[in-house]
Structure formats: C-alpha cells, structure tokens
C-alpha cells in the first residue's frame, strides 16, 4: 500500500478547487493586460462586492447539488426576498421586522422544497420548478405587479443599505464580509459536522445512507433550507443595492448558482465537491462580467463569451480528472 501521508492535491476534490482558483488568476491577468483599470483599487473593491450574490446562490445550489438534487427556485426566492422586504419597508414597516418576515417566508419555501423532494419523492427538477414558478408569482403579487418605489432614507433604512451594500471597513465592503461569514459557517457545517457528512452521504448513495440510519428527509430539507437562506440574503443585497424591489430580481440566478458550483468543482451528480471551490466559481463569473464590461464588449457578445468559457472550464476539469485518475468507469 502507498504511504499513509497523502499529498494535498490527491485529497478528493482539492485538485478541482485548485484548478478553479488558477482559472481566477489567469482571467485576472488577462483582463489586467486588456485594460489596466481592471486592477485599480476601486474596481477590485466593487468586483469583490459584485461576487457576493453569485457566491451566495453558489453556496446554496452547491450544497443542494452535493445531495444529488437541484434547486430551481433559487432565483425566484431571491426575487421574492427583494420584493417582500422592499414592499414592507415602503409601506412603513420597521426594517428589522420586515426582514424577519421576509426570512420566514423564504425559509418556508426551502422547507417546502425539502418536503416535496425528500418526503414525497418528487423529482427535484419538477418539484423546484413548481416552487420557482410560484415564488416568482408571489414576487409579482406582493406589490400588485409593480416594482416598488425607493425604500427611502434615514434611520434603520440607511443602516440597512450600508450593511448590505454601501458601507465598508478599509477596502472591504460589509456585504463582502457578511458573505464570507455565511460561507465560513456553511463550510464548517459541510466539513466538520455530522449534518454535512449526511449531506455528502445521501448524494453519494441514498440507499446506503438510509440503511445506515441517516434521516434522508431531514437531510434533504436542511440542504434546501440552507439554499433558501442563501437566496434570501442575496435578495437583501440586491434590494439594498437598488434601493428598491424589482420583480425581475434574481432572474436566472439558479443557473448562476449551478455555474458557480460546477466551476468550483462540485458535481451535479452529488456526493462530491468542496465549498471552497464556490468562491472561485463565483469569482470567475463576476470577473467575466466585470472584465468584459471594462473591455467594452457588448452585452450580447458578453453572454456568448461567458457561455463558452463556462463550458471550457468544466470540460477542462473533466479532462484533467480523466487524465489523472484514468478514464475508467468512475462511480458516477
């Protein structure tokens, strides 16, 4: 048998994460060469802030992917979160109370997803397609099919905007710090707790997990609820940035979440992947948006380029894995 001490890179999932971070550095160098403004302090600061929503939905979708499921409701829950909080605040409700009500509504959607998929065994694609549509409808309904007006200034409203978007300490916006704390908490849950271990286990082999005494329903529900919580936070950040609630907020974000997770090395088939990778995955996404904008690439072209790069990233990772591990039948 080989040596007990294994190399850092040979640990499962680590190589994918390293690849993703290398990708981040390469992209940054390319954009730096294309436009020196890319690495200016102001741009880097706002770049870090623009990563936040992608990172949050990437964490949520990543965790759900590790259970072997998918959460299509992420974007709609984000929109719902922005619309509910903004509408309540515009109608004069206390900001903290509004956020709490918003939180309960979003977590309930996550719980419902868990019940549909974990208890009633709906295919996750169908179950969350349903909640996705319902939640977008709710986002439109709360303010009678209008976007909200500006949430206004003063008191807690200023504190809210500062905390989630405008305020900063040194070079770091508070929003970035909040996201990193959320990331650290879920990283800990996934890597160091029995709950995290169960999330990996049901994604790897749900029958084995059940026969070993893992509560599959509970574990599925925890994953979906975490995802809903992440969408809720991303919704608040989006709302704070705009100063209003938009019914379109979060459109397609469930797919951005998939992209951030997959670029970061999380398999959509479940059972594997590390949450560290999502930081790189979300960064790649945000850097591409930001860098291509600075390089004056028109929106339509940007989309095409980003699409190709995402496919290339994942293709590269698959080829690298096959090269290293050998193309033999991997237990998918």
């Amino acid at each position, binding site marked *: 048998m080989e040596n007990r001490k294994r190399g850092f890179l040979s640990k499962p999932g680590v190589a994918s994460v390293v690849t993703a971070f290398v990708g981040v550095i390469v992209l940054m160098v390319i954009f730096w060469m294309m436009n020196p403004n890319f690495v200016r302090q102001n741009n880097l600061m706002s770049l870090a802030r623009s990563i936040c929503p992608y990172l949050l939905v990437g964490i949520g979708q990543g965790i759900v992917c590790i259970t072997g499921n998918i959460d299509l409701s992420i974007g709609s829950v984000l929109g719902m979160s922005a619309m509910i909080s903004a509408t309540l605040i515009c109608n004069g409700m206390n900001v903290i109370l509004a956020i709490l009500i918003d939180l309960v509504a979003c977590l309930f959607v996550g719980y419902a997803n868990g019940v549909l998929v974990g208890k009633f065994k709906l295919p996750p694609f169908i179950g969350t397609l349903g909640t996705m549509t319902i939640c977008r409808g709710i986002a439109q309904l709360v303010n009678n099919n209008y976007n909200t007006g500006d949430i206004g200034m003063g008191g807690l409203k200023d504190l809210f905007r500062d905390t989630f978007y405008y305020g900063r300490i040194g070079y770091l916006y508070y929003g970035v710090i909040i996201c990193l704390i959320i990331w650290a908490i879920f990283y800990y849950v996934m890597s160091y707790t*029995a709950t995290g271990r169960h999330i990996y286990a049901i994604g790897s082999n749900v029958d084995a997990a059940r026969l*070993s005494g893992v509560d599959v329903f509970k574990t599925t529900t925890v994953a979906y609820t975490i995802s809903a919580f992440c969408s809720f936070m991303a919704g608040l950040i989006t709302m704070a940035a705009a100063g209003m609630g938009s019914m379109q907020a979060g459109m397609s974000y469930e797919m951005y979440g998939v992209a951030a997770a997959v670029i970061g090395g999380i398999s959509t088939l479940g*059972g594997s992947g590390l949450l560290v990778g999502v930081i790189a995955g979300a960064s790649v996404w945000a850097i591409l948006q930001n860098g291509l904008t600075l390089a004056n690439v028109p929106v339509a072209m940007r989309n095409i380029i980003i699409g190709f790069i995402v496919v290339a990233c994942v293709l590269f990772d698959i080829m690298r894995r096959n090269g290293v591990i050998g193309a033999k039948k991997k237990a998918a």
Partner: protein
Amino acid sequence: MSDYVVTMEHITKTFPGVKALDDVQLHLKAGRVMALLGENGAGKSTLMKILSGVYTRDSGDITIFGKKIEGDLNTKQAQALGVAIIHQELNMCQHLTVAANMFLGRELTKGGRLDNAEMNRQAIEQLAKLGIHDLDPDEAVGNLTVGRQQMVEIAKALLINAKVLVMDEPSSSLSNAEITEMFRIVRELKAMGTAIVYISHRLQELHHIVDDVTIMRDGKYITEGEFNSFTMDQIIANMVGHEVKNQFPRETVAKGKKILEVKHLNAGKLVKDVSFDVYEGEVLGFSGLVGAGRTETMRAIFGADPKTSGEILLDGKPLNIHNPGAAIRQGIVLAPEDRKKEGLCTKLSIRDNIALPNLDIITLGSKTGKINKKVENEMIEKGKSSLTIKMADAEDQAASLSGGNQQKVVVAKWLARQSRVIIFDEPTRGIDVAAKVEIYDIINELKKQGVGVVIVSSELPEVMGISDRIIVMCNGKITGEVDPRNTTEEEIMTYATQFGDHAAPASLSLAS
C-alpha cells in the same frame, strides 16, 4: 433449543399475487456458518430481509438471543439486537472515506464537531481485528477494490456489535485471492462467536467455511442439517427439486474454420498486445483474476472502449470497429458483465429490450423508420420459444424477470440477428444452478450452429466445464493457453498470477 441465537419458525410472507414465504424455519447457532441455499426466487433474500427488519412478516415467530419479537421488527431494532446484513450489491457511499462509511449515521462528535481522529482510530482498530492492517481510513471507498469494500462493510457491521451477520452472495464479484481473504475473515468472525448466514450460488466453495445448511425452494423450507451429512448431489437435488445430471454439459463439436482473429490488440492500461483466434464450433474461455484485463479486452473488441492499436479480422476480412454499433452491424456482439447496468434497459419492456439493437432489421424497408410490428413480434416470439424465457407478457419491465431470464433476454437480443461471434462476460453471475444449465445449453446450441462463442468467467469450474479451450490473462497480457480437458485449477492459477519479473503474490489457496 437454548443454544440457538436466532430461531425463525412458521414464517409466512405474501407479496401482492405471490406467496414469497410459506411456513419457513431457520435456526442459527453462535460461532457457526449456515449456508442458506436455494435457487433464485426461493425466498432466501426475503427471509433475510425479514430477519434484518427490512420487510415485516405476515405471521410466524422470531426469537433473537432469547428475546421473542412481538409485533413488527424494524431495521433499528434488528440492528440493536445485533443483526447486520451485507447486501449483494454493496451499500457504500463511494465518495466518502472508509471511516466515514463505517460511522455513517452514528458519527462520533465532540462539541458538535466530527471527531475524525477518534473515528479513524476505531476504524483502524476494527479492521485490525479482522487482520487488515494496510487500509487507510482516509481513503475514499470508491478507490478500493470490491473485495476491500466488502471488508469495510464487515468491519462496519462489527462496529455495531453484530452478533448475527447475513452475507448475501459475498463472493459473487470477488477474485479468488479476495475470496480466500474473505474466508479467512469469516473464520475470524466464527472464532469470535458470530453466527453467520452465508448465501451463495457457488456451491463449490461452501466446504471451505460452511458448518450447516438450510435449503429452501419456491418459498418453502425443504431441509436443514450439518453440511457434511449431505453430498453435493443431494444438496442440488433439494434445491432444484429434481436431479441435475450434469452441471456443465459440454458438447463436443468438430472444430471448423477460423472465424475471428484478433492481432496485437492494445487498449487502455489493461489490454497489452493481445492476440487470439476463435474457431467455428468451439467455446473459447477466458480466465484470470479480477482486473486481469479480460473484460477490457472484450470491450475493446466490441468497440465499447477505444483501441490504441491492433487488428480484428472476421472471416479473414479486417474490420473497422469504432463503436458498438459498428461491431453489431458486422456481426460481433457482447453480453456484458453487469446485466442490470449494461445488458438491459431494466425499466423498458422485454419487447423493447429485444428490439433495441435490431431496430435496423425491424424498420427495414420503411422510409420513415416506422417499426414493423409483425417483424418485431416474430423476433420476440422466436427469442421466447428458442430460449424458453419465462415471462408473463413481453410488455412487462425487464426488471421484473429473474436473473436467469434477464440473461436470456440479453441473449435473445443477439440471436435475432445472425451474429458471427457472441462474447459472454460472466454469463451466469448470480444465477441459480438450473438457470445456469439452461444458459450453458444455449451456448452449446450456438456452438453447434457455427457461431464463435467467447466466454469470460471468474468461476474456474465453469470456465473449465464449458469451454473447449481456455486463454488465461494476467495484468493485461495473455499468459497461457490450456486445454480444459487436461489441465488443473492450479495450472490455470499459475498462469493467472504471472505478473512478470515482479514476484507473483504469495501462494493462493483456491476454491476447488
């Protein structure tokens, strides 16, 4: 009676439409291995699922360690009472580590945080009790061989203090060396006083470890007793319900012309410069350890895996095979190792499965690719009657058939088109004695019709009993060729362990 650790009396279980168990009994003693024998569908697995709480019984009494079970027994209770089951299809999380799998569902934590160091320590300790000292608890289970994964399952069972261990076909996918290792562990468990239920279709291996037998047939208890008090013929007769005259009915047919020629084939890491010929009227057997490259060779010939170099000639003409479709059109077909995963679309009907590789024939003459029901029906009827597939309706899911009948459906797929060479990879794995003989009869029939038959088998008695010529592989190379009529298992194993300059692994004691 008190020396029994488990007694099951008058157990009855009915599934919709089927009486799966009818007044069955079972008695287990500590420190003894009980072979539970019977054909597929005899009810062995159902009985064991009742013992481990996966199914609930309709009626009957279960006593475990003197505790009479009142009402339904669930998996948690069964585990608490010390009953563990190792399923035929291993139930492991491939992505998780050895230690994580062993502690799954009962993780050790310290202040809410996983205590990996302690779990690793205990995992090593448990494995050491089984005499396994070289397994890294941090290794992902998916990187281990099937044999090793099974050791982890056994160690996991010991971790919950299993005193009754049910092993459902533990040897079916192990190499001979791994089986030897598994037997050693079973003996260790016996010495610790564990009662073991051992389910296996490999009757030849039983005498190595088995103390007692219980035989079932068609959901009924037939007989039980000490293993040594039965002859093998008596055991088989009790399982099948009648005598099986010849377990390996080889028919000799005059060897004809060369059909298939494989020259210097290279593919991947496990096919190195492989050359061999297949003649009309012979069954060519491939033997070797698991991982010797036999399956890989066949997959490369069939176009399922890419080749790096080499030539394949059929009836003297070189073939160009880049994918299985090309191989099928040119007359070479493969009945793969894993029936459920690769041989059949189990969720589709029997009809669809048989038609699938023959849609070119079925849609012949139609410009729009319309399925010709008449041709299709004839094809299914032919397969059903010539192979005696036992099925209620061709529209039933392939998954509803027994293993033996599933294998016949796989064969029927290929009989529908005049294939020149049929490759069988482990054709009888997990199939009962009577169905095995039926598969051998089909192989003999093909041989008589002039089809070139290649069979890959890890069961030495089978490959020696049914082939006319045996090629032995080791580490991707052909290391020997023997005539099964005058060879020994020892000779085959010598070839199978010729790893080249590096010393062969320590002597292998064999199931014979």
